[in-house]
C-alpha cells in the first residue's frame, strides 16, 4: 500500500490552538508589511468590542484587498454603533471602491442600519441619499418598501428619486402605486422618471 502519512509535528500544532492576543499586540501587527499578518490581526480584533475605530482607520488606508475584506468582515461581526458610525463616515469618502465596499457591508447589518436609515435618507448630500438607497437594494428589512416610498414622495433630487424608483420596480408591491403616481406628477418634465415609474407600475401590476 502506498504511503499516506500523517505528519505528526504539524498536527500537534493543529491540535493546540494558540491563545488569543491582546489589543496592543494586534495593533502592532496591523503595521506589519505582510498582509497575512495584518489579516490575522484584523480577524482577531473582531473579538474586541472597542476595536471598530482601529479597524475603520485601517480600512481607510490599507491597500491590500484581502486585508480590506477581513476588516469589513470584522466590522460586520462587531456590528455595534461604533462600527456603523465608522462605516457611514467612509460613505463620505472620495474613494469609490471604499464606498462600494462599505455599501455591501452595510447591507449585511439590517438591524443596525435600520435606526439610522431615516437620517441617511434625509442627509443634506444627495450622493449620500443615493448610497442609502443603494444599501436598501438588498437590505433584508421589512421597512425597505416604506423607506423607498418615502423617498419618492418627498425627495427633491431627481437622481435620488430615479434610484429609488428603479429599486421599487424590483421590490415594490401594490402599496407603492400611489407614491409612484405622485412621483410622476412631481416630475412631469423628466422623461426618465415617467419611463421608470411606468415600468415599475407595470412590474408591480404583473406581480
Amino acid at each position: 500500500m502506498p504511503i499516506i502519512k500523517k505528519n505528526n509535528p504539524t498536527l500537534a500544532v493543529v491540535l493546540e490552538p494558540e491563545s488569543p492576543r491582546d489589543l496592543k499586540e494586534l495593533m502592532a501587527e496591523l503595521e506589519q508589511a505582510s498582509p497575512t499578518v495584518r489579516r490575522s490581526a484584523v480577524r482577531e480584533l473582531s473579538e474586541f468590542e472597542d476595536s471598530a475605530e482601529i479597524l475603520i482607520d485601517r480600512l481607510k488606508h490599507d491597500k491590500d484587498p484581502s486585508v480590506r475584506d477581513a476588516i469589513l468582515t470584522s466590522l460586520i461581526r462587531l456590528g455595534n454603533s461604533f462600527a456603523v458610525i465608522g462605516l457611514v463616515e467612509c460613505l463620505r469618502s472620495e474613494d469609490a471602491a471604499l464606498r462600494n465596499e462599505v455599501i455591501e457591508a452595510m447591507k449585511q447589518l439590517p438591524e443596525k442600519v435600520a435606526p439610522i436609515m431615516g437620517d441617511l435618507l434625509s442627509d443634506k448630500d444627495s450622493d449620500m441619499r443615493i448610497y442609502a438607497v443603494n444599501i436598501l437594494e438588498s437590505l433584508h428589512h421589512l421597512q425597505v418598501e416604506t423607506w423607498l416610498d418615502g423617498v419618492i414622495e418627498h425627495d427633491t433630487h431627481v437622481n435620488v428619486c430615479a434610484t429609488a424608483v428603479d429599486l421599487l420596480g424590483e421590490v415594490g408591491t401594490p402599496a407603492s402605486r400611489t407614491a409612484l403616481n405622485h412621483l410622476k406628477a412631481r416630475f412631469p418634465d423628466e422623461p426618465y422618471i415617467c419611463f421608470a415609474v411606468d415600468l415599475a407600475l407595470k412590474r408591480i401590476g404583473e406581480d
Partner: protein
Amino acid sequence: MEKITISEDDFQKFREFFYRKVGIQFENSKRYFVDKRLIERIVQTGAKNFRDYFTMLRFEASGQELQKLVNVMTVNETYFFREEYQFKCLVNSILQEIIQHKTDKQPIRIWSVPSSSGEEAYSIVIYLLEHWPAIAQWDVEIISSDIDSDIIDSAQRGHYSSRSVQYLPTTLLIKYFKASADGYQISEEIRSNVEFTCVNLMDVAQMRAYRNFDVIFCRNLLIYFDDMSRRLASETFFDALKPGGFVCLGHSESMSRISSLFRVRKFPEAIVYQKPGVDL
C-alpha cells in the same frame, strides 16, 4: 381539514427542485421519507396543500423555509463517494496542478470539514489510493474536523450502515470494509490515515492553528449558514490555504456570492475556488 397528500408529480417536481438547490437526489425508494417530512412542513407552515407550499418555498425571498426543509431532509445525510465528480477533479486536475507547482517536499495537506461521520475524509483516502498513482511519490496528510464531538467519535470508529456505503463499488467495499451483523467496518489501514479534530469554524483564535492546506473540502455546510457566518467561513478558508490552494464547495454553493477573494477555476470535472497564488 383536507388530508394532505403528495402525488407522483409533486414528488418528481420536489425532487428536481431539491437536487438543484442542495445537490441531494432522492431515489423513488425514499418516497416515504420525503413525503413524511414534506407533509410535516406543509402542516407546520399552514399551507393548504403541496402546491401552495411549493410556491411559497420557491419564491420566498428569505429562504428560511428552504433552510428548515433542508434541515429535516438532510439530517446526517452523507455517504461514501457523495458528489464523486469532485473527487475525480481532485485526482485528475487539482492534485496534478499542486504537484506541478510544489517546490518543497512537505506533505500535501487536505482538510475535510465538516467531517460528519467521516465518509468524506475516508472517501478521499480511498479515491487517492485507487485513482491517483502519484500517491506513491507524495505524502498526503488528511485532517477532518467537525464541531460535534460525538460525530467525531463516530467517524473515528468507522462503522457504517449499508445506506452509507450504497454508492461504493462492490470491489472497494470488499477491499476496504469488513461486513458485520449491523453494517460495515472500515479497515484500520484507511482509518489510520485521517486525523479527526473538533473545531468551530467561527472561532477565530482556534482557527489560527489551521494553516498551510493545499485543498479544503467544505461541502453542503455553507447552505446552513447565514450571510455573516458564510463570510467568516470564507475568511477562515482563505487564511487556512496556502497561496494557490483550492476550496471545493457543495453542488449548490458558490464562493463568488460570498467573497471576491477567490478565483473561480473551471476544471473539466468541477468548478472549484482558488486562493491567488502569491501573497498579495
